[in-house]
């Protein structure tokens, strides 16, 4: 396995239930303040906590992109217009040319909420709504195509949809396209918005908690679903050595079960080791791990064991899903940006909501956000189908 050529993170934007933009997420992390709320959501008939981005309601899609109109693409637009991200993209377009900037994005459900609404419409009126547009909303590629049109980018790209690892794997795809000369820079990102398919789907697996989610807690009993979006501009590190770098990726499969992780975390161990090999770093070089840490019994148990196998029990880590909820296809980008913010802001996020640590896990996450300056961090994301991805960021 070849060592990776580091790539610089030259711009980023993040939107989730903690608020719009980096400053909101930093505030939430510093103040140990969750974006999750126990609240009703139209169409939902059970109690849970949700991470909702209320600002979606107040924005409109650009008229020329009307056919892409759905909650997922509106959330994408909200993020692209936050933190001056679209301005940084304009500058990259000038430097490289619009056809030399790739777009690699992840989502698990794209605009399926539109199809859910259409079926509900049909249930009452026997017909789909007139403006239903399968390809530009429901189809997974809607996100990539919308981002490309919105930003005026004509480079290569695709949408990755591997459940909850989707927007972690975009870094590996973008890296490969840049080093093989198919583009000079890339937008990587991910968006997932609330929809009934995932809310009722996870509930059918009895994985949704009625309470606020408590990763690594002895009494943890499931996830809270949150919506989120995030994007990063990735460029060769040679353009700006002062930025945090993307240093390594590891991708693997559990080859075990569709919805339950490998009990010993075999696939996760491969992903973490491959990421370190590509980054030319050893386990002792990783000073913080942002956990997948969903707060289901099985994820946290398997992940803790995989961490123990790679790092031993002294690893500094936390799950930030207590802040944002599980943002599914957007978890990779959300937690990558949180890891990058940790490096930039000299903070290590706390494992919010953990009241009684589950000692059987042996891995003890940081309880509260702590001031500390570190060089290299890892983030883990694991998805249904046994799909794993670990990423390393550092100075």
């Amino acid at each position: 396995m070849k060592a990776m050529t580091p790539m610089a993170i030259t711009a980023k934007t993040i939107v989730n239930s903690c608020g719009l933009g980096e400053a909101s997420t930093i505030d939430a992390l510093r103040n140990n303040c969750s974006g999750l709320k126990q609240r009703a959501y139209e169409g939902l008939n059970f109690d849970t906590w949700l991470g909702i981005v209320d600002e979606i309601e107040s924005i409109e899609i650009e008229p020329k992109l009307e056919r892409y109109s759905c909650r997922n693409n509106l959330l994408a637009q909200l993020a692209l217009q936050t933190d001056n991200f679209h301005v940084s993209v304009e500058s990259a377009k000038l430097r490289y040319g619009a056809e030399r900037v790739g777009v690699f994005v992840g989502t698990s459900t794209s605009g399926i909420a539109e199809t859910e609404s259409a079926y509900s419409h049909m249930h009452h009126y026997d017909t789909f709504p007139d403006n239903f547009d399968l390809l530009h909303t429901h189809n997974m590629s809607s996100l990539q195509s919308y981002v490309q049109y919105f930003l005026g980018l004509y480079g290569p790209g695709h949408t990755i949809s591997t459940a909850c690892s989707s927007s972690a794997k975009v870094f590996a795809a973008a890296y490969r396209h840049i080093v093989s000369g198919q583009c000079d820079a890339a937008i990587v990102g991910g968006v997932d918005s609330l929809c009934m398919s995932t809310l009722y789907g996870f509930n059918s697996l009895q994985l949704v908690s009625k309470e606020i989610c408590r990763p690594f807690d002895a009494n943890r009993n499931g996830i809270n679903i949150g919506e989120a979006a995030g994007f990063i501009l990735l460029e060769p590190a040679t353009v700006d050595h002062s930025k945090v770098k993307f240093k390594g990726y590891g991708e693997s499969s559990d080859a075990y079960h569709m919805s339950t992780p490998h009990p010993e975390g075999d696939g996760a161990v491969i992903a973490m080791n491959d990421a370190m090999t590509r980054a030319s770093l050893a386990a002792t070089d990783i000073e913080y791990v942002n956990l997948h840490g969903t707060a289901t019994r099985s994820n946290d148990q398997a992940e803790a064991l995989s961490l123990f196998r790679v790092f031993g029990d002294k690893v500094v880590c936390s799950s930030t899903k207590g802040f944002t909820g599980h943002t599914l296809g957007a978890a990779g980008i959300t937690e990558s940006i949180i890891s990058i913010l940790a490096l930039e802001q000299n903070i290590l996020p706390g494992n919010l909501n953990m009241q009684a640590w589950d000692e059987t896990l042996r891995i003890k996450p940081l309880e509260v956000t702590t001031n500390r300056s570190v060089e290299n961090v890892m983030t883990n994301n694991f998805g249904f189908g046994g799909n794993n991805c670990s990423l390393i960021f550092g100075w």
Partner: protein
Amino acid sequence: MTVYINDISVIAPGLIDRTITRSILLGDKNWVYQEIPKLIPNMLPANERRRTTPMIRLALACIQGLSNDCNDLQNTSTVFASSDGDFEISDKICTALSNDEKMISPTLFHNSVHNSAAGYWSIASLIKGASTSISSGDATFMSGLQEAVTQAEVDGGTVLFVAYDYPAPSSSPLDKYSLIKYPLAIAIRIGKTAENKTLGTLKLEGPENDFKESVCRNLSLEPLRTASPVGHGMPLIEALVRRARMQVIIPYLRDEKFRISISH
């Protein structure tokens, strides 16, 4: 980027029996529609097999059509590409959610992920390599091939690329909106080194707007080429089977196309 094409497999209506499929791809016989019989993914344990859908079974059967003499099984990564994923599952979930009870079964939900076929394949093969599942709408075949070639180029090892599209059930309202008329799966095993059954090398050039999309040499295959996003890959499969040095133009994003040069 140049890689070896080490094996190919295709399944579609009328392209089921290997000998007949070969004759059609060589242009010796005309393609006629013939329904795909029920495919049984013997590679899976019985409990997992029961949970599969026709789309998943199509993708798995196509991969099963590849020879097993790959040098590099454990070092295999996979690229699964499908424009729309599993309409049957979307239809069942959205129908259930439009009723008052909103009951979804756990199997229905875990089959709803775009990487469902990839998940089942890894369970069957026990291969723990990298696995991605993508969509690029109408450009899905070319995007998937590009990602597979790029992975072989940058990360090395063997890359198993499988592209598959499956129509919506005719009873589903989604059928009216879907562009997919026939099921089709294409699997290609790619590597940076040659294997015993290597069909040749493949080089990607582009994308360019000026290239003109290839049609099937065997014109009777045209309905299959135009019946789904994965259909765009049919001229490539034909060229690989015919073993003649040639170029094939495959559509990509927007109006762009890639030129694929094949050497045998």
